[in-house]
């Protein structure tokens, strides 16, 4: 394990700037998640660290050593790809043993066997070691793919949306497992995803990536409560943050220059009203209540805008009810989108 630093790294493909001036420090044993939509440059960032791409500018340090011009084989990273994770012509055992059998490592066959057995147990695939890699379910394949990275103890694990192709239940299970394994091993991990839940639940720190730029980096709490701008705010929270023009809801505290208010459930007090509304609150109408199982979303119309907040399943509100809305310390953004 080691710390990894990117210093002003840029990489473009033709006219597309996949990654631009990215600087990032990952501490030894830290779990960093880069969160961004498709095309944000997540995969390219990982490939740059692994040495599969050469940056046009900037440098990459692994354990203090400048590896910008070093071959992938000598960088001591392990990579879990988004797709095509297993060698189809090999069995599960052979897939897991593949990194250990590399000519660069020269491990004894007994040591390979022992290590594979250990990791197979860790990712719970030890009952299918002799299966062809293609004869596995999606979840099993992904566990093997993760296992193939875990058989080594590299300076850093690089994981490219390893759970994105799985169904929700499996994703939730593996998310926890991966976090547990990482914590147990104390490994340094850079994990990229477009799934905010994965980011929130696993990360020590989250980096928000947008169009190849690192917009903000911080603990999940920091990113959630103090997003640097509208883009970051919109990426976290379920239901998504309500973005409203200043003045839509009465708000004495709005700072000068505020153009947009960001209001999540915890920023809005909602009460049922019959007749007139108290001063300092706005009048809205319940449109419908969406029961999602784990969450219930309250849709409220107010002065031509729509708001969505969480609501208790046992709420007494009904569609058509009048409600009063009051802001409580919401987020303010200026016209350019930066938080005030």
């Amino acid at each position, binding site marked *: 394990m080691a710390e990894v630093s990117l210093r002003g790294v840029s990489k473009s493909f033709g006219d597309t700037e996949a990654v631009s001036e990215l600087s990032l420090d990952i501490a030894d044993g830290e779990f960093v998640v880069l969160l961004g939509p498709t095309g944000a440059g997540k995969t390219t960032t990982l490939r740059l660290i692994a040495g599969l791409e050469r940056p046009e500018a900037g440098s990459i340090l692994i354990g203090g050593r400048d590896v910008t011009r070093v*071959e992938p084989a000598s960088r001591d*990273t392990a990579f879990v790809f988004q797709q095509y994770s297993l060698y189809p012509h090999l069995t599960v055992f052979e897939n897991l043993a593949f990194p250990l059998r590399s000519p660069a490592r020269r491990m004894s066959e007994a040591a390979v066997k022992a290590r594979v057995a250990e990791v197979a147990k860790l990712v719970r695939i030890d009952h299918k070691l002799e299966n062809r890699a293609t004869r596995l379910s999606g979840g099993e394949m992904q566990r093997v793919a993760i296992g193939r990275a875990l058989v080594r103890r590299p300076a850093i694990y690089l994981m490219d949306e390893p759970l994105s192709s799985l169904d929700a239940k499996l994703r939730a299970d593996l998310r926890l497992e991966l976090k547990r394994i990482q914590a147990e091993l104390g490994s340094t991990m850079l994990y990229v995803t477009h799934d905010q839940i994965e980011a929130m639940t696993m990360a020590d720190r989250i980096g928000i990536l947008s169009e190849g730029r690192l917009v903000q980096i911080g603990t999940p709490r920091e990113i959630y409560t103090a997003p640097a701008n509208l883009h970051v705010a919109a990426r976290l929270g379920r239901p998504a943050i309500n973005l409203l023009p200043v003045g839509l809801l009465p708000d004495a505290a709005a700072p000068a220059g505020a153009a947009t208010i960001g209001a999540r459930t915890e920023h809005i007090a909602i009460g049922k009203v019959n007749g007139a509304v108290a001063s300092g609150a706005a009048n809205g109408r319940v449109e419908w209540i969406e029961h999602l199982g784990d969450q219930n979303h309250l849709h409220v119309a107010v002065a031509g805008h729509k708001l969505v907040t969480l609501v208790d399943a046992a709420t007494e509100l009904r569609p058509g009810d009048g409600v009063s809305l009051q802001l409580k310390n919401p987020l303010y953004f200026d016209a350019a989108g930066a938080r005030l």
Partner: protein
Amino acid sequence: MSAAAHSVVVPSTTAKRVAATLVIVYALISMIPLLWIFATSFKTPPDSIAYPPKIVFTPSIEGYCNLFTTRTRQTREYIDALPAPTGFCDETTRKRNMVIAGPSNFLPRFVNSLVIAFGSTFCAVFLGTLAAYGFSRFRVPLADDLLFFILSTRMMPPIAVAIPIYLMYRELGLSDTALGMILLYTAVNVSLAVWLLKGFIDEIPREYEEAAMIDGYTRLQAFRKVVLPQATTGIAATAIFCLIFAWNEYAFAALLTSGTAQTAPPFIPTIIGEGGQDWPAVAAGTTIFLVPILVFTILLRKQLLRGITFGAVRK
């Protein structure tokens, strides 16, 4: 009607039968020349030129005897004075007032064909795989132009370059050598191999090699351990195409080989001249000539069937 609706998706039994019948009839028609050759190879020389042609006949391996031997005509008295015949071939030959003078050139010519066809196929597929991998994975300057140039070598009718090659080979001492023929067939086949194999290798995601390289393998090791095993289908299909070309090639073989390096295709017709029109011997030579391709194709038929889609469908 649900049955009618069903038949839209799954062909009805009748349709299947009609299709099967058509395929069988077509196969039979296509196979008539082959069956004719096969039958002729087991006829006696008189049976082979009988008119009307004999469909039913007593099989004989005289054609095969004549294929593998050279014979000289002798007087009855000379033949009668010889010790008893040592085998079927000996006996049949004597009945036709001839004695076996020695082995014919068929076997060495056949071996030439094997060496040259398999040798050139190996070289073409070997070079083709490496070149295709290079074109598929690296940013080769002018890659498209180079690929077109490689393909363009196939566009010209080969016979157009026959005279220059003949002269060049004479100067270089490559005329009538197995090496010369292997080089020539490799040169012709390598373009086909590059194009076919590039399609197959393009289909193998590069992430596999990249994963191997991150895991400590060099590119060449990754190529061997990860790319080659997944390219076997394409390699097998390409090898069969190359082999069929090299095995059947007649024009250059006739022009450039006449003696020690002569292959079977130009040799087989020469059998006709030896001692009358010996059709059973020609047919026997042709039948044996078909065997290697048949065996090779059957051995690789699984790969070939999957490979015939030119990499469109993997696995």
